[in-house]
């Protein structure tokens, strides 16, 4: 009997970003329609709302397919995901016109300047966050769905 482990791995992987997605939508509606902020937020949320959940799903499918050979824990596997998301998100944001890369700062929405040192700290924090989320939430859902 085919129990579709990869489908279950995909569904388990997209759970966390899918739960957060309504918060992005709510923030967008409040900022754009409620507070009438003219910043092009819709260009900025394409990546977190459109691509990130799918990437999480495929990343968990990759873990499902490879962990019998690599013996990598799901937490550690998830820690590697920001190494893919950072350049991909930066590429999407620069092409969407919401991010410009300066000599010492990254400039978001032509107004918010963030020094690269702070972005490096953000990246380190993201690694810690991803490790914890993948270990405790994605790992838990994987166990519930019977793929771990």
């Amino acid at each position: 009997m085919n129990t579709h482990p990869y489908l279950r791995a995909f569904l388990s992987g997209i759970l966390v970003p899918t739960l957060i997605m309504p918060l992005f939508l709510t923030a967008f509606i409040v900022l754009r329609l409620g507070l009438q902020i003219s910043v092009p937020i819709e260009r900025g949320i394409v990546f977190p709302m459109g691509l990130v959940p799918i990437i999480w799903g495929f990343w968990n499918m990759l873990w499902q397919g490879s962990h019998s050979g690599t013996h990598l824990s799901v937490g550690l596997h998830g820690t590697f995901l920001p190494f893919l998301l950072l350049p991909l998100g930066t590429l999407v944001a620069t092409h969407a016109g919401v991010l410009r890369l300066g000599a010492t700062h990254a400039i978001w929405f032509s107004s918010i300047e963030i020094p690269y040192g702070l972005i490096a700290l953000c990246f380190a924090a993201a690694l810690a966050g991803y490790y914890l989320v993948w270990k405790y939430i994605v790992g838990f859902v994987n166990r519930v769905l019977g793929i771990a």
Partner: protein
Amino acid sequence: MNTHDQDRIQQLLREALPPTQPAEPARDLWPAILQRLHAPPVAALRTVPLFDWVLAVGLFAFVAIAPATIPVLLYYL
């Protein structure tokens, strides 16, 4: 095949195959399962390694110190 042959085959099979272990566990496992299901969440928190606690505290401290980084973190979530 007559009855004698069948008895002979049965005897040979019994001699060739090792005796099987009892399939059921020696004790009732259901009380242990119930105990795990009804275990308080504090017990589960105690199993979280110290390293993970340090990471979680560091992450919350970073976000509290530099709240301007929250949108950047959310963007890459």
